[in-house]
């Protein structure tokens, strides 16, 4: 085991080369709803049991099924209202189980990126060939049934191996060559995109994905009240919008159709989105668009700045 995942180097937030988003926006906002499928009777991973109660855990399964039956359309209609195209973190098996939802995403021109096959299958204990097989499966399904060459990856249920990011880059390159701008949402170390190191040398960036603003983390782990969650989103936006006047920032709102789409939570979320979109200098983007823009315009100077910083410069 390592003391440091070794995907990125230290890079102080101040004195970085300025990031300029399209139309001089201060903040690139992306909404990343997780569209997931959790299994009724999944196998148990030796390192993590999918459900708290014995299968079938109808409490856990039921509310997640609610996300697909009720919450998905509700969140999509809310995003429609604000002209936001979602970047969907997708359990690839949802394409098999619920193709109607994929069709609704395609009608809206959403980005679909890989969130594994099922959110009840973890990468723990898989060997490299097996993790590679799972990744390839998810990317191929998104190509075949979602019609997109997958650009991003968020490991299912945030379950990682030491080589998860390397494998994603390698599998993508095998399938698509170098045509896809690659990004990871598995690292929470920054509010701006950062270059990542992969063992194959394939170019890949980390696009900020705020774990603290992830509704499941906010509601289930940190037990935030729904209205407080709305306030957290606004407060985060105010800071990133102010700082974005100096150099472009990224704000991500990661959601789940079984959390924020519940009737007692969606009104506060709607108010937060209304607040954000009432500002002029916001780029309503997708994860891929942010990654692509950064790679095209800022990657090289970012890399030079990181190296200068490591060498003791500013």
């Amino acid at each position, binding site marked *: 085991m390592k003391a440091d995942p070794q995907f990125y180097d230290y890079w102080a937030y101040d004195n970085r080369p300025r990031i300029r988003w399209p139309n001089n926006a201060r903040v690139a906002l992306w909404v990343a709803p997780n569209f997931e*499928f959790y*299994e*009724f*009777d999944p*196998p148990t*991973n030796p390192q993590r049991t999918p459900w*708290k*109660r*014995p*299968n*079938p*855990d*109808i*409490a856990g*399964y*039921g*509310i*997640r*099924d*609610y996300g*697909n*039956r*009720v919450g*998905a*359309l*509700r969140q999509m209609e809310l995003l429609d209202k604000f002209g936001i195209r979602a970047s969907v973190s997708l359990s690839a*098996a949802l394409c*098999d*189980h*619920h*193709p*109607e*939802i994929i069709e609704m995403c395609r009608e809206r021109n959403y980005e679909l990126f890989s969130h594994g*096959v*099922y959110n009840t*299958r*973890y990468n723990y*204990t*898989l060997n490299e*060939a*097996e993790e590679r*097989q*799972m990744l390839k499966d998810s990317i191929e399904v998104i190509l075949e049934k979602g019609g997109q060459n997958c650009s991003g990856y968020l490991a299912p249920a945030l379950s990682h191996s030491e080589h998860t990011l390397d494998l994603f880059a390698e599998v993508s390159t095998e399938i698509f060559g170098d045509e896809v701008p690659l990004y990871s949402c598995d690292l929470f170390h920054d509010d701006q995109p950062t270059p990542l190191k992969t063992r194959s040398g394939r170019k890949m960036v980390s696009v900020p994905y705020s774990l603290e603003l992830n509704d499941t983390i906010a*509601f289930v782990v940190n*037990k935030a*009240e*729904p*209205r407080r969650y709305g306030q957290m989103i606004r407060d985060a936006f105010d800071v990133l919008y102010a700082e974005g006047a100096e150099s472009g920032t990224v704000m991500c709102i990661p959601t789940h159709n079984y959390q924020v789409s*519940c*009737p*007692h*939570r*969606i*009104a*506060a979320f709607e108010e937060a989105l209304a607040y954000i979109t009432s500002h002029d200098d916001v780029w309503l983007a997708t994860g891929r668009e942010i990654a692509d823009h950064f790679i095209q315009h800022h990657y090289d100077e970012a890399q030079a700045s990181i190296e200068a910083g490591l060498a003791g410069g500013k």
Partner: protein
Amino acid sequence: MPSENPLLQYPHRHYGMDHHRYPWQMLHQRPQVQWPDGNKVALWVNISLQFFPLAQTDKTFQVPGGMRMPYPDLRHFSLRDYGNRVGIFRVLKVLDRYGIRPTVAMSAEVATRYPSLCQRIVERGDEIIAHGLNMDALHHSGVDEALESERVRVTCETLREATGQPITGWLSPGKSQSFRTPDLLAQNGIRYMCDWVNDDMPYSVDTAHGPLVALPLSTELEDTFVLLNNQHSEQSYAEQVQDACGFLLREAETKGGRLLALSIHPWLMGQPHRIKKLDEMLAHITGQPGIWSASASDIIAHAGV
């Protein structure tokens, strides 16, 4: 060569659900529901009257409200019993003030231990739902079939005898089920169950003994979940219920009738420091146009399931 690791085998990966209880269907694909008198939201208040045995034996998972201290856990036993002695009467008084007819989910053992309480509910005419034998007689896949079958049978028989009601509704202790629970319920004359929270509206479920209706009793808005599990304040609980009500009223303008299902535990909301919030919350909800307070069976009858 694909891996043979069981963690990478997907035997149920195909169109639709990965089980056979109900077909895959999104809420908006179903016919819109019209409630009586043009109302928009059906308000279903379910009160749970529960018996928690002091000697709790099944520790498969932590039962909400269950014993958690070393035996004898007098603290939690008596706090729960408070609901059956004191809290229930406070809660009923508030409901009566706003003309809300609750359904009452009752442990069979409440009916046998506290027959006068059971009779009070029967005399009020409130619909009673079977809530298992007691809060330690759980339903999950670790319980053998004969025992689970016996639990369902005895619960239904006891409550039918004690109440004189047909008892067609079921709420499992801790909302937990085994793979076979819905089959056993249908076999014992149950017509609807309230354990599944995968929808905002009732829908039909398949069993080996004919169809059942699933009437979702929201856990996310349940008093115990918000106040105890999430540790939110009484004020926040009331705000959450009011926000849900407001949202459902708006959604019902274009999508058909909606259901606001509130699960109340007298041992929690019946406490003196909480009852006022329940009162204010229900005043707010029932003060809005378009709210139809109804029993579980009335809601199902009008939902066309």
